[in-house]
C-alpha cells in the first residue's frame, strides 16, 4: 500500500527527519493561502501515486503569486498518467547544493533488507542502478539486529557522501530503518535528500510503501489508504479485495491462483486472443466471490467473452458452480458468453450443478481457452 508524499513526510517529520515547511491544499485558494504563509520560492506538488511526477508536469516551482496561481490551476484537476490530481503539497523551496538518494527495501534474493545510499539523488534511481550500479552503496541489514549505527555510517561513507554532512545523512538513514521496521514498510526512500547552502540536510521527497500483509498491525496507516486508482474497475477490484489488473484485450479471464491465471492469460495469447484482464479470486472462494468476479468482467465494456478457469485445492468446484449459477440467473440475458472449466476438489459435483443453459463447459484448460477466444472473435465481429 502506497502512502502519498505528504503522508510519508508527516511520518518522517514526527520521527525527526528534517522536511521543508509545507501545507496540503485541495483548491487554488488553499494553495494561495499556503504560499502566503510559506513564502517564495514554493514547490507545488501533485499528490498522486505516480512515479516521475516532475517530468509529467505534476511539480512546479513558483517564485511569485502569479506563478503560484498558474501552477495551482495547472496541476489541480490535471490528469497524471490516468490519475486525477485532487491534492497538492505546497512546500517551501529548498536552495540546495547537492542531491542525494537514501532508501531501504527488501532484497528478496537475500531475504533481508538492504540500505542504499547514493550521491546521485534527484534522478530516476532505477536508471542509476542499471547504468552505474557502483554509484549506489548498499548495506544488507540483519533483520534480527536491525541497522547498526556503524552500518549507517559505513554505507554513507562508501557512497562518498561529503564528510561534513555524513553524520546527518547516517542519522537520517537510521531513522528511516526504524520507520521501515516499526511501520512494516515494503520500501522507504528519500529522493532527493537535499544538502542546502548552509550544509543542512532536508528530505525533499518522501516515498513510503507499506507491506499490505502487515496493515493489521497498523490501523493508523490502513486509514491513510487512498483508493484513487487509475481505473474505475481497478477501484472496484480493490473494494472487492481481488488481485486484478486491467489489460487491453477482449477476453475476460477469471481464475484461482496467480500462476494459473497468468497461465490462462498466456494461453489466450497463445491461441490468438487478447486478454482483457488478470483476475485472481484467490483460494477457497465461495459463491459470493464468484458473483463479484463475474460482475467485474461483465462491467468491463471491452470484454467480449469470458473464460472461467478453476482448479480446486482449497477452492471447491461446487461452491464456484453455485456462484456462477447465481450470478448468471440474475440476468435476463447473459451479457457475454462464459466458458467454464472446473477441475480438482469437488469439480465433478460442480460440473453437475452448473446450469449449461447459461454457460458453456469444457473439460481441459486448452479447450476452454480456445473456445473463449473463438467466442470473443465472433462477438467482436
Amino acid at each position, binding site marked *: 500500500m502506497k502512502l502519498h508524499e505528504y503522508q510519508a513526510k508527516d511520518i518522517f517529520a514526527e520521527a525527526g527527519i528534517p522536511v521543508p515547511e509545507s501545507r496540503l491544499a485541495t483548491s487554488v485558494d488553499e494553495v494561495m493561502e499556503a504560499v502566503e504563509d510559506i513564502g517564495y520560492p514554493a514547490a507545488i506538488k501533485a499528490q498522486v501515486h505516480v512515479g516521475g511526477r516532475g517530468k509529467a508536469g505534476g511539480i512546479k516551482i513558483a517564485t511569485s503569486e502569479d506563478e503560484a496561481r498558474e501552477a495551482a490551476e495547472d496541476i489541480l484537476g490535471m490528469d497524471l498518467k490516468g490519475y486525477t490530481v485532487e491534492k497538492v503539497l505546497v512546500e517551501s523551496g529548498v536552495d540546495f547544493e547537492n542531491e542525494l538518494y537514501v532508501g531501504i527495501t527488501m532484497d528478496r534474493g537475500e531475504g533481508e533488507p538492504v540500505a542504499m545510499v547514493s550521491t546521485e539523488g534527484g534522478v530516476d534511481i532505477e536508471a542509476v542502478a542499471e547504468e552505474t550500479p557502483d554509484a549506489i552503496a548498499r548495506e544488507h541489514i540483519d533483520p534480527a539486529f536491525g541497522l547498526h549505527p556503524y552500518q549507517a555510517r559505513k554505507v554513507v561513507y562508501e557512497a562518498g557522501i561529503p564528510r561534513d554532512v555524513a553524520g546527518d545523512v547516517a542519522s537520517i538513514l537510521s531513522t528511516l530503518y526504524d520507520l521501515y521496521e516499526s511501520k512494516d514498510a515494503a520500501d522507504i526512500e528519500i529522493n532527493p535528500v537535499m544538502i542546502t547552502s548552509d550544509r543542512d540536510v532536508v528530505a525533499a521527497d518522501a516515498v513510503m510503501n507499506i507491506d499490505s500483509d502487515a496493515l493489521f498491525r497498523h490501523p493508523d496507516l490502513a486509514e491513510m489508504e487512498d483508493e484513487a486508482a487509475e481505473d474505475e474497475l481497478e477501484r472496484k477490484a480493490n473494494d472487492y479485495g481481488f488481485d486484478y489488473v486491467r489489460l487491453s484485450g477482449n477476453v475476460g479471464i477469471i481464475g484461482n491462483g496467480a500462476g494459473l491465471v497468468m497461465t490462462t492469460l498466456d494461453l489466450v495469447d497463445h491461441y490468438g486472443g487478447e486478454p482483457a484482464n488478470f483476475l485472481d479470486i484467490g483460494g477457497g472462494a465461495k459463491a459470493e466471490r464468484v458473483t463479484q468476479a463475474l460482475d467485474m468482467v461483465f462491467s468491463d465494456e471491452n470484454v467480449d467473452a469470458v473464460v472461467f478457469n478453476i482448479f480446486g485445492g482449497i477452492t471447491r468446484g461446487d461452491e464456484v458452480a453455485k456462484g456462477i449459477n447465481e450470478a448468471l440467473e440474475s440476468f435476463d440475458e447473459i451479457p457475454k458468453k462464459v466458458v467454464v472449466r472446473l*477441475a480438482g476438489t469437488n469439480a465433478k459435483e460442480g460440473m453437475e450443478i452448473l446450469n449449461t443453459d447459461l454457460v458453456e463447459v469444457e473439460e481441459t484448460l486448452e479447450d476452454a481457452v480456445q473456445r473463449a477466444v473463438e467466442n470473443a472473435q465472433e462477438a467482436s465481429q
Partner: protein
Amino acid sequence: MSILVDDDTRVVVQGITGGEGRFHTEQMVEYGTNVVAGAVPGKGGEKVNGIPVYDTVNQAVEEEDADASVVFVPPAFAGDAVFEALDTDLDLVVAITEGIPTQDMAKVNKRLGEVDTRLLGPNCPGLITPGEAKLGILPGNIFEAGNVGLVSRSGTLTYQVVSNLTDRGIGQTTAIGIGGDPIIGTSFVDALELFEADEDTDAVVMCGEIGGEDEEQAAKFIAENMDTPVAGFIAGRTAPPGKRMGHAGAIVSGSGTGTADSKISALNDAGVPVGDTPNEVAEYVEDFL
C-alpha cells in the same frame, strides 16, 4: 521412493482447531497421512478427529515423536508459529498460511540459517508423495504415484500440470509447491537437489513464473549439477511490465531479469525444454521417460 515425506512421516498440525486446520487435517488423514498431533495454545488436552492436541509444538513433538509440521495459523501469528516449529527437532515445517508480513519472514529466514530444520513455504500448497502422504492443501485425488518429481511456485498451476501428467499415465514421486512469497524457506534449487538425489525420480517438472531470479538460479543449478532431465513451464509471458499480478513474486520489474523471456532462455540454455502450454510440458516429460 520420494523426497521429504512418506507414509512414515509423523505430522503435527499447527492450528488444527481452526476452520482450515480442521478441514485439511481431515483431508490429510483421509489421504493416509500419519497426523499424530495438533498444537494450539490453550487447547492442550482436546482432541480433533481423535488426534491429541497440545499447547505447544514442543510438547507435541516430544510426546508424539513427530517429524514434520504443517502450519495453518492465521498470518498475524504464523511467523511466531514457524519460529516455534523451528525450535524443535522437526525435520520439516510446511507453512501454508498466506499473507505473513514480509518482515516477519525476514526474521524467520535469519533463524533458518541457524537450525537444521527445513521450511517449505509460506503461502504454498504444501507437498505430496502420492499414495503415501500429503502435507498441505493439495487435492490428493489428482496425483498418482510414479517417477516424476514436480516443483512449482504456484499452487493451482501445479495441479494443472499434474493433471496433464496423470492424464497421460505419468505418476509423481513427490510434488512440491514452494510458494510465491518474496521470502520462502525452500527454493527451486533446494528441491531440484533433492530430486536429483532421489533414485526413483526419473524426470522433473519445474513450474516457474515471472519475477525474482529463482528460475535463473535453478537453470544454472540444472546445467551444472543435474543428470535427471527437467522440463519447465513459466507463467506470465504476456504479463505487461510493471504490473503486479497476484502474489508478490509475480511482478515484472521492467529490467532485464525476472521476465518470462529471461527465465525461458536461461532454462533453454540449461537444456530444459519449456512448454508453451501445461500440456506441452507433459509431452516433454513423456518423451524423457
